[in-house]
Structures are given as structure tokens and as C-alpha cells.
């Protein structure tokens, strides 16, 4: 059926209405698509935030556990004055006290100047480990005197005592008379280790 001009004009209004429907429909789809895109973006942001918070929470829980475990050791280091500045006077006092208490014949010592052993990276500042090497010369009646001396030194605190070297030799002196003659001499190198925590308060 061929349409006349008049009939085509009659189809104009329905066509406009149909186009209007189509435009409104397309608008609905567009707005729905935009809404969907925004909702997806919002969901992605929320998911990222949730994941980050969950990870942070997991980390802090782990950190809390680790801190709790290490806190006792840290406190002990603090109480033994291993953590903090060197206390050379206390070291000297301790050696004198041990010599007297253990009735050692002769004790000579010399503490070298402090040097940095290692610097561990921390936050917000590093933790530095220092060592002052002490050379001790002992005159001994028995080798056990050396062991007691070292044990007493460790118990005195104020540093961590890491023995690096000990040479034990016979003196070869003859025993006799009323004076006590040392049978052994010992020479030890001991690192007196202290820790400086740059982030520590007070």
C-alpha cells in the first residue's frame, strides 16, 4: 500500500510519540547505567576501605601480640640498665666488689673506648648497639675463680657481657710459704654491650 502525502502527515504525530517513548526509554536506560556505574564505583571504594581497615586491624592485632611478647624482654633490658647510656663507674664498682667478695688475688682491667656495633633501623629512630671492650687480667688460684668472676660480672648488670676471648695459662710459680701464690693467670676480652634507643621516652 502506497501512502499519500496526507496519510504520511497522519503518521507524523504517532511517529513523534513513538520517538518520544524511545527517547524517554533511552533516558531511563542511560540514567540506570549511570546509577549502576556510580554504585559500582561506590562499592569498589567501600570494598577497598574495608579491606584496608581489615588488614590494618590484622596487623595491629599481630603487632599487639608481638609487642606483648617482646615487652618483657625490653623491660628486663631496661631494668638491668643494658638499655641506656654506659655506666662505667658502676662497672668499676662491680669489679671491685667481685674482687673483694671472691678474694681474687689480682685483677687488672682496661675498658677501651665505646664503638658502634650495629644500628638497627626502627621507627621513628634507630636503635644503636654499642660495645666497649674490656680486657681483664686475673691471677687465679683455681680455674673456677674465672668462672665465678664472669658469673658475678653478668649478675651485676649495667651492660650485656659478651666474652670474646679468654686465655688461661699456668703461671709455673712454685707453691709455698704463707702467701698465696697464683697458679693460673687468665686474660679475657669482654664486650660490654649497651643499647641506645633513640625513640625511648624519658
Amino acid at each position, binding site marked *: 500500500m502506497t501512502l499519500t502525502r496526507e496519510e504520511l502527515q497522519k503518521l507524523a504525530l504517532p511517529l513523534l510519540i513513538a520517538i518520544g517513548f524511545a527517547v524517554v526509554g533511552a533516558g531511563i536506560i542511560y540514567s540506570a547505567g549511570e546509577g549502576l556505574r556510580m554504585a559500582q564505583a561506590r562499592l569498589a571504594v567501600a570494598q577497598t576501605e574495608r579491606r584496608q581497615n581489615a588488614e590494618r*586491624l590484622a596487623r595491629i592485632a599481630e603487632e599487639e601480640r608481638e*609487642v606483648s611478647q617482646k615487652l618483657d624482654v*625490653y623491660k628486663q633490658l631496661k631494668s638491668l640498665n643494658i638499655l641506656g647510656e654506659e655506666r662505667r663507674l658502676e662497672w668499676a664498682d662491680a669489679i671491685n666488689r667481685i674482687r673483694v667478695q671472691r678474694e681474687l688475688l689480682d685483677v687488672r682491667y682496661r675498658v677501651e673506648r665505646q664503638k658502634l656495633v650495629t644500628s638497627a633501623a*626502627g621507627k621513628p629512630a634507630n636503635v644503636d648497639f654499642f660495645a666497649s671492650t674490656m680486657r681483664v687480667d686475673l691471677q687465679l688460684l683455681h680455674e673456677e675463680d674465672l*668462672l665465678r668472676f664472669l658469673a658475678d660480672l653478668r649478675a651485676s648488670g649495667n651492660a650485656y657481657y659478651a666474652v670474646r676471648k679468654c686465655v688461661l695459662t699456668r703461671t709455673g710459680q712454685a707453691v709455698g710459704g704463707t702467701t698465696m701464690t697464683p697458679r693460673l693467670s687468665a686474660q679475657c676480652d669482654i664486650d660490654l654491650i649497651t643499647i641506645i634507643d633513640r625513640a625511648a621516652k624519658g
Partner: protein
Amino acid sequence: MATRRILYVTAEDHYLYRAGGGGLELEGKFPGDDLGVSAFREHLLSRPGGLFSVVADLAGEDFHEEQIPFLRGGDRDAIVQRRLAQRYRDTRLATALSLGEAPSAERRNERLLLASFTNTQQLAPWLDALEEADARLAGVYSAPLLAPALATKLGVRGGRALIVTATRAGLRQCYVDQGRLRFARLERTIDMVPQALAMFVRSETHRLAQYLVTLRALPREGAPVQVFVIAPPGQREVFEQALSSDARLVFHTVDYANALQSVGLKKVPEVTRAEALFLHLAATKPPREQFASRQDRRRYLVWQLQRGIVAAGAAGFLACALYGGAKWLEVMDLRDQAAVQQLQARTAAEQYERITAAFPVTQTSSENLKVAVVEFRRIADRSASPERALIHISQVLARFPQMEIDSVNWSVGRAAERGGLRPAANAAPGARPDTAGDVAVIVEVSGRVNATQRTDYRGITAQVESFATALAASGYQLVERKLPFDITSEGTLTGDIGATDTGEAPRFTIVFARSLP
């Protein structure tokens, strides 16, 4: 839905009905003469552009069966038009109803029932009036064209059936075979009492059946024909008494009210008779076949096109709305998910704050606390004390009283740094100390072998070897030993046989080590 008007055309008067809402309403009655046409024109002037259907209930309706080659499309249309033109002088109101494929051994043919009115001039002025009023003519139907639809509504399922109705035009009889119209006739009636009308129906039905047999439209022998007679209101019992079935015809009397219900007609004017059934079907379920030409229906077709375009737009809009709705549902779901995620994020943040608040109080940062302890443990692990080594030496010496120790050199260092470190000669193959490259406790023991003759090289060597082996136990490994007599190929072996014995005991040096973690 647009209101449809039905012009019911009879030989005397024409009636204009308005169809809608499941009912019929009589809008006007017009005489069948020129005055009636004029009145109809005037009536249309007040309602221009309406939607119209015409239902003709006239006696002069011709039915003629033809066969044409089995064709489709334009070829079929052309041949149908040619056959109609051959059959009828005026083809303005003529149609061809397909009766299906004709059984033929020679070639495929299609059976057609050509139908038209013997006097189309009865209808032409009325169609012209509609044309002049810009009315949209949906179609021109006759009561017989609507009979198959009525038969279906009355419950006829296939087979041969006669539909008998009493309309304003007279007694209408339609023969429907397998759901297709085959023949119809209209017998004019005068006002009769119900009994007379029933008897008239019976006699006319038998006459029609006989005629159909003559036309060979009905087989002479065979199953009885079902006759559905729609009795006028209140006359069903009278009709049932009068219409007795026999071997040829089986009568089913249908009450008028039931028939109205069957076609879904709820409201009809009181004066209307059985033609209401045909009119309602023309308004609600018009058959594809009708008499009006394409030119007469042009406005209607354009109107349908208009509606189709709008409907297509609406369907598109609906589809978009459904799709958009589904998307918005998805959006709502995503928003819910986002809300849940936000809630979980907030909860985690709150929990974090709570844990942080309950954190152990330290005088440093958590990070420094950790590195200080970790590094200190590392240093402590790599430190040692001479006690263990001295105890070990004492225990071994208890088993070797002939050995006299001059010095013990205990140190912490790298075993590899001791020059020329190599496995001991009697060490197990491949038992290279694992102290070689790592920090270890290294003990160097120097001493003498007593109570053995200096000339007993083998004995002294064996005792020192045995002593060294005993020291290289309890976690210690032998690093080096220096025997009183160098018996290796690399060394220098010396002797002073026959000379005076100096009494000096042979000296040895043994180095053993224990690795630190």
C-alpha cells in the same frame, strides 16, 4: 480502546450500534431507503472519523465453491480477483474464503468459497456515506462470515454443524464444515408464536440439509449433522420439544442468555435478537475474511498503522523501562552491598581504635621495641661463656691423666679465620666442621704427654690422637691438632737418636670448635 460502531444492515432497516465494555448499545435506527442514508449521513456528521464495521444480514448472499491452483502471494491474489470478477458483476463487495487444499491426484489445488451479495447496491450508499464522513471502515462482514466464530464459541469442535439463529432479518442458517463456512441462507420470517417458529426452524433445517446433500456439500450417508439452534429468550423449552433429533440431524437448543454468555456479551438492547451475537463477534473477534475492498478500508489501515507505530514506541519504552528497572534493582543491590562493606570498614576501624587504646604502655615505639629485642637476641645468641668448654675439658682430662694442660685459649670468632683450617686427619669423610664460615666457640688446648717414653713415637701419637678425638665430642668438632711429631708429608720429621734424654715431655696443641646459632 477506541469505540467501534457496528452498522447492522437488513433488507428493511439498518441499525447502528456502539460496541464497547463487553456490551452493545443501540445508537440509531435508519430506514433502508434514501431517507435512511441521508439520516445516517447526518448522524455521521456529528461523529466524524469513527471506527466502523458493517454487518450485513441479507438474503441475497451468494456462495460458490471454486478451485484454483495452489499458489501464494501476488499470484494467488491475482487469480482470486480474476475468479471473483468472472463470478460477480460488481466485485466491490466480494471475497474468497479458503477451504483448504483440494484432494486431487493430478495437481495441488486450493478450494475457495467465493462469496458476495447479489445486490451490492443495498450497501453501496451506506459505504459511501462512511467514506464521506472520513469514517475508518474496519470491514464489511455478513452474518455467515461470523458464523464459524460463533460456532466455536458455542462449543463446536470440528465436524459438520448448522448454526441456526433468529435475527431481525429472519431465520439465519449457516453451514460450517471443519470450522469453515460452506453455505448460508436467510429465510424471512413473520411474527410467529414460539411453537410455530420452532416448527418452522425444524422444517427449514431439514430442507437445508436436503439441499446441501443435493449440492454434495453434505454426504448422503454419514454421521449426523449437529444443529445448534439459539432459541429466542424464554423459548428454549418449546424449541427443545419441537426439535427432535433423528439419524441425519442432532439438535442442540441453546438458550439465548447462554449464547450471550458464551460470546462474552454482557449487555444488549432489549429489542435486539440473535444478531447481537454476530455484531459482538464483529466488534471483538472479527474474522480475517470480509467483503470490503482495500480502498474502502484505507483509513482504517492508516489508523492501524498509526496505532502500530505508537504501540511499537510504547513497547520500546516498556522494554527500556523493564531493562532500566532491572538495572536499578542491580543498583539497589550494589548500594546494599556497599552499605554492608562500609559498615564492616567502620567496625574494623572502631576495633582498631579500641585495640590501640588498650595497647601495652611502652616507653618507645612498637617498631623500636621489636628491633631492639630482636637485635639483642641475635647478639646474645652469638655470644657464649667459657664455662661449658672448661667443664668439657675437665671431663675429658679425667680420662687422660697422662695429659697435662699448659694453656687454654678460649675465643669466639670465625673458625675459618684460623689459618689453614681443614678437617682433622681422622675426622669422618665429609665431616667438615660447620663452624668453618660461621661464628663459633674455638678452644685451643696446649699441653704435654707425661708417663710415656719420648722415644715411643707411636704411643705418644696414638694418645694425642685419642685425646683429640675425646675432645671432639659433646657438640665440639676438631678443627686442628698439632702432634708432638709431625708425621704428615707436608711437615718436617726430626729425631735425635742416641743423645741424652732431656726429660722434656712431648707437647701438643689441639683446636676444637662449637658453632653458635
